[in-house]
């Protein structure tokens, strides 16, 4: 047994360190020397400190851990830290441990007539820690704002093993640097979240969904523009190509999924107006879903499809702004081929964001970024930033310098999340 494995067993107990048959806890081809299951912040701090002292790489996950760059390292699975510690309805907040399953959290909170809007990144495995670690801008973000909006405070273990806390139950706080929101999306490169104070909302009083079978993505996009012109801003306004849509319901063409949450009168009225616009744009079938069980089943299926999209490696996500979506759709086929036959196209009407599966993501991203930039957008994230900077002939290295400078301040030995390179 290696020294580090012995140390880990001393910290969390022998039963919570796995060194054989680890595959169920891992995603990827590389092999860490141990999977460890901490039960407390102190456990996490002990594990990280031991790894830091020994210069051993560490990555973390809710149920599964990405092994990229983790050969010989330590995979920390947070699933034992899965408790809701405190629900505070008066302040609309909740302390929750980072390993709690995201969707389970949403459901438990709903039972208390409270609401946590962010969508799970991968509904079957995502944890609350992962939710903020990834910091997605999900398909509800136009109305509810991005995931980072829902973190008010947290406890984190630094890559050097120290624990720090920041934040309060106040929704307004400008004391010190805004680490509270900055930490969202840092993917464990700056430390491991162990407990999070999340912001909640009152549960919506009414729900409706509108589904439609549209002849094309272009027709769906035109309907989305018309809906916004009516000043209707649904919770979700998504269109899925036939291949993805059929995993939710059978359609001849593109599946449009519209989610309307809110107060009873406007929700009912908006559903009628949305359906009318979809019909005008050529829907061959449409339906307003009023039954709550049917509504829940529909969005549960959507979350499965969302997981599939998010875990697909060969894809490009890009934004163009809501009004430019029809233009983007019209031009995209020239890059990736017939969109109606593509295995994965998602249009987020309000975010002005598109996702497309492609066998040659790296090359296509360059062409797609050029297209997106011509429409005022870009490919998302670090890749998009790099492509954008190259296109402008600017010094992309300066962004990388800033990112690396921050990372090295937090993690001087570079042990955390080794798969993430800038």
């Amino acid at each position, binding site marked *: 047994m290696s020294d580090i494995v012995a140390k880990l067993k001393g910290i969390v107990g022998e039963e919570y360190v796995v060194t054989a048959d680890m595959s169920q806890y891992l995603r990827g081809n590389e092999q860490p020397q141990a999977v460890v299951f901490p039960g407390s912040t102190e456990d996490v701090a002990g594990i990280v400190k031991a790894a830091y002292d020994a210069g051993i790489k560490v990555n973390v996950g809710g149920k599964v851990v990405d092994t990229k760059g983790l050969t010989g390292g330590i995979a920390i699975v947070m699933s034992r830290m899965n408790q809701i510690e405190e629900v*505070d309805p008066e302040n609309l907040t909740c302390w929750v441990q980072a390993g709690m399953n995201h969707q389970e959290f949403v459901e438990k909170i709903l039972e208390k007539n409270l609401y946590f809007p962010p969508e799970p990144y991968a509904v079957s495995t995502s944890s609350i820690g992962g939710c903020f670690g990834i910091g997605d801008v999900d398909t509800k973000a136009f109305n509810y704002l991005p995931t980072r909006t829902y973190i008010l405070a947290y406890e984190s273990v630094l890559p050097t093993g120290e624990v720090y806390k920041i934040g309060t*139950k106040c*929704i307004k706080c400008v004391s010190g640097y*805004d680490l509270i929101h900055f930490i969202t999306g840092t993917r464990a490169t700056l430390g491991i979240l162990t407990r999070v104070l999340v912001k909640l909302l009152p549960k919506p009083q009414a729900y409706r969904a509108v589904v439609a079978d549209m002849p094309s993505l272009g027709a769906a996009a035109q309907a989305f523009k018309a809906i916004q012109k009516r000043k209707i801003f649904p919770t979700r306004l998504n269109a899925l190509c036939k291949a993805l849509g059929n995993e939710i319901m059978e359609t001849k063409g593109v599946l449009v999924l519209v989610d309307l949450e809110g107060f009873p009168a406007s929700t009912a009225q908006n559903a009628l107006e949305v359906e009318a616009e979809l019909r005008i744009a050529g829907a061959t079938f449409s339906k307003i879903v009023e039954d709550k069980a049917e509504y829940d089943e529909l969005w549960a299926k959507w979350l499965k499809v969302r997981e599939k999209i998010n875990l697909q490696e060969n894809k490009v996500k890009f934004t163009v702004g809501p009004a430019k979506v029809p233009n983007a759709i019209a031009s995209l086929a020239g890059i990736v081929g017939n969109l109606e036959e593509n295995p994965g196209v998602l249009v987020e009407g309000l975010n002005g964001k598109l996702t497309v599966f492609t066998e040659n993501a790296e090359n296509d991203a360059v062409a797609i970024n050029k297209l997106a930039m011509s429409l005022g957008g870009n490919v998302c994230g670090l890749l998009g930033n790099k492509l954008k900077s190259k296109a402008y002939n600017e010094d992309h290295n300066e962004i990388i310098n800033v990112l690396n400078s921050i990372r090295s301040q937090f993690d001087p030995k570079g042990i955390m999340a080794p798969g993430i390179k800038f």
Partner: protein
Amino acid sequence: MLSQSQVNKLKSILGDKDVITSKIGMYAYGYDGTMLEGAHVAVVFPESTQEVVEVVNFCREQGIALVPRGAGTNVSGGTLPSEGSIVINFARMNKVLEIDLENYVAIVEPGVVNWDIQEILAKYGYYYPPDPASWKASTIGGNLGESSGGPKCFKYGVTRDFIYGLEVVLPNGKVIWVGGRDFSSEPMYDLTRIIVGSEGTLGFITKAALRIQPVPQAKRTMLGIFNTPEDCSQAVADIVAAGIIPTTLEMMDNLIINTTEDYAHAGNPRDAGALIIIEVDGYAADLDAQVETIRKVCEKDNAKEFRIAKSAAEVDQIWLARRVAFGSVARVKPNYGINDITVPRSEFPKAIAGIEKVKKDFGATIGIVAHAGDGNLHPLILYDQRNKEEVDLLHKAEMVLCELALSLGGTVSGEHGIGILKKALMPKEFGEQTLNVFKKIKRAFDPQNKFNPGKIIDL
């Protein structure tokens, strides 16, 4: 004091009229809303990103610190010039570069006044939600520096929630764009969020992409008048518990009700313990039901009066007292210290009680204006700046108020920032490790500590 060659170099970058070094010329740029004064050696007025870069590069070579400034409405000392620094005033970078209504984006320079962008957007039926009280004077750059709040924050969020991206000049003179024209374009780390609210200590913002929104279909304005602040705070809690997040929940206590009556005759009862202005907005079809729910809540919580505005004139009448609240206290004392302590909403009644105790303990005159939905209080401590005893008392009472907020699980600053005024309280709000993390952030951007040094933390 700068040497003549240093002054000449700055003038060669900016032009003669955009460099001030005379004592009298610099005076107006040496203080802010705190009434404290700094000790700068020049004021410069860049008009482009390139000029900012050249000033930054020159000052870095010369070892001179730079202090950014917009309209100087800061009330935490964030814009006070440090000893020997140059004030870099962004007021002339005030162009609205683009408004893209269909994609909900406006691109502006930092010197644009918040109110000016609101007026432009209003013509098209759009708006930019962050609305700090200083919005008629304060600049977008200043709002970004402090991550300013305002009455609409309870429903819509603060400045950081409405920024898609920024052009930033770093302390090394390099220019980066962080974020983009949407929320999905950050280069992995959300650099926009760490720069917003950093009070110009990490980089200087030279352009900002703002998220703009269509004006909601409808709005209703209500006024609840209560015998006691406790009843008023209970109503706030009960409105939220009823599933309604109002746009605005603005509270005023008895002292402020009376100073505003003296000043503007707003028509509110002088014997009221507190009042709240409540606004809801959204789809027109929903608002009648929400108003009815709020009316019932206020009645249950012993409101002595509940008014619903039926016309634009009545809306203005309800808002009149709040709009003149700060100015009206001048009838009692010539100066006031404004604080922005914030507590969890559930602790709001205890905060009010704590402020009452501070009044008694210090013999101070304190009026309260509050964004009650956020738990964000503005206890206005009235004093006379010419009376040293009163000034000393003000500073002591403000510290006690901050400690009160911390004891209730709150923060010393909900929307004004730390600057220098509240820096001493940072170790009381944060543990040593957290302060060390703040220093890591500062060192990552500005290892030489030349961008607004001495603000928020000391390295």
